[in-house]
């Protein structure tokens, strides 16, 4: 019965082929270090879900950002849990993505034919750090304000284009409401879309080239 429905669905969608390529494939025997990539993916999904929930109450303006976060912590059912998870998963994701990169590096898994997988991975690492940097400002508390003041002024010391970068990040010479909305836009739209797209390419390449085998002593 079920198989009849599946075959009907497959006739129209090719779903069985997709399943076979993604799940029903042979890969070399791998160890626990190989779970770091999927752990990165999992943490990103956690961030997407909790982030969307936070955006229901969060208001990106200097007048209301702090209070809206305060409200999430004390007024919203399980708001503290959602924010707590988002907060910790952010740190954990940076750590796990970095460890995943180290795994790939020490196993030489960035070599032929997986060079492009590595390049997309570097984009993901930078975008993840960008998420951390832009997200840090959003609660508009002391830590956020001063860390971002220093962070953006560091960007301002780049020779030649520093001043331009500084103004582009801050939307003016000082940290202001414009900075907050800019960081918000980057944090909830631009960077997530980059990450989502590049994860797609990354995973396509991982499946296409297959997971590398653990290198042997002589390899």
């Amino acid at each position: 019965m079920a198989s009849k429905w599946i075959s009907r669905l497959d006739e129209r969608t090719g779903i069985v082929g997709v399943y076979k390529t993604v799940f029903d494939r042979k890969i070399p025997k791998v160890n626990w270090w190989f779970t770091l990539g999927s752990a990165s993916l999992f943490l990103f999904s956690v961030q997407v879900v909790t982030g969307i929930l936070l955006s229901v109450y969060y208001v990106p303006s200097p007048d209301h950002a702090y209070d809206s976060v305060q409200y999430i912590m004390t007024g919203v059912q399980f708001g503290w849990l959602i924010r707590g998870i988002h907060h910790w998963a952010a740190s954990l994701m940076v750590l796990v993505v970095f460890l995943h990169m180290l795994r790939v590096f020490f196993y030489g898994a960035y070599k032929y034919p997986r060079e492009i997988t590595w390049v997309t991975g570097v984009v993901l690492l930078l975008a993840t750090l960008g998420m951390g940097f832009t997200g840090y400002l959003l609660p508009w508390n002391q830590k956020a304000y001063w860390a971002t003041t220093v962070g953006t002024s560091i960007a301002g010391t780049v020779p030649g284009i520093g001043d331009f970068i500084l103004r582009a990040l801050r939307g003016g010479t000082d940290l202001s409401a414009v900075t907050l909305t800019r960081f918000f836009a980057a944090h909830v739209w631009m960077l997530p879309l980059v990450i989502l797209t590049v994860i797609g390419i990354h995973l396509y390449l991982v499946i296409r080239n297959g997971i590398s085998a653990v290198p042997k002593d002589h390899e």
Partner: protein
Amino acid sequence: MSELETDQTLQINVTRKRSPGTTAMNEEEKREYQEKYRLAKLHGEKFFPDTIYKDVLISFALFLLLIGLATFIGVAPEPKADPSDTSYIPRPEWYFLFLFELLKFFPGSLEWVGTAVLPGLAVALLFLLPFIDRNPKRHWKNRRFAAGLMSAIVIGMVALTIRAVVTTPPQAEATVAGTLAEQIVAGQDLYAVHCVECHGADGEGGKIQGVQGLEGVTLKPINSQDEMYTRSDETLYAVIELGQQTLGMPPFGRAYSGELSPGDIESIVAFMRYTWDDRAEMPKAAEQASTLPVLKPGETPDYATHIEPVVKRYCVSCHRPGKENNNYLMRTYDEVMNSGDHKPNIVPGNLQSNLIRMLRREEIEAGGPMPPSKPLKPELIEMIERWVIAGAPEKASGPATK
């Protein structure tokens, strides 16, 4: 040998001559790699379920870890952003600390080396790694240089991070009102310190006494329905932050050389709103914390439980440093007992103590009636008297320790 095979052999021979292995993998090596990889897969496992089961297990463990971290550690409360507070020590997220620390090695005109050149170089190298590192070997033992360099970098990053944590001085502890009730109670304390000397303990106003520069000025009440219905929170905030200079009220916002942070001012506004505005309902928790203790018949009053809340609300506003008070400070038990030009103002067991006489609105050598503008409620005076008679104890058990 078929035509195709000859063709391939030929090709392999050609490429082998061109690149002897030190540069990019040649075609033969690539083919060799793919063949080995095919065998590895053959002896390998099924992605579903063999591999994915490990992935799911790790993700689930991470999920539990996250719930644990969110529940038992949570997110540290922080005061609201205050652009005027330049004493705040900036602290980036921990994973940027190593960069922050790295910059310290490039002071002054070399700064751009640390901010632009090194990070730029690192990112470029990271992107180009697969094209720069053309060693076909994969096991780290056969890639001593690459593995050693990366290990050194990672150890360096960890060391810099530790150094940053160790060398940054701890932030001055700031209390953050989390809930509305906490905010109201914090606001009440701040109101008592900063506002009471002019506006009265309950915002009743009246004639100002004992305040430099404003002596004898009469203030209208700020706790009236009129006042509360026509002033929004934003207006109250602005009045406190900026003051009303033509009327004599100084600015209190730190940005205008006052003493209050934005969070402090918000707390005071919340206290005013929830205490005096009959449309706002005081949260239960705040109500309990803000009502003055009542003495039960036969109970012995002590400083911590009964007297301190009264002192805080009615006296500290003037009896703190920088005010005209004959150096009688009342911020702690010790100050209440032992400070002042006419000390001791409290003699345990003696109702002729300066403090009691002044509360009873006598004019004595130490000064006039206290509080100057309006007497304390009789039951509060009685409570203080009973405390003095009982030996002015600090805590619930035992008499005063002088």
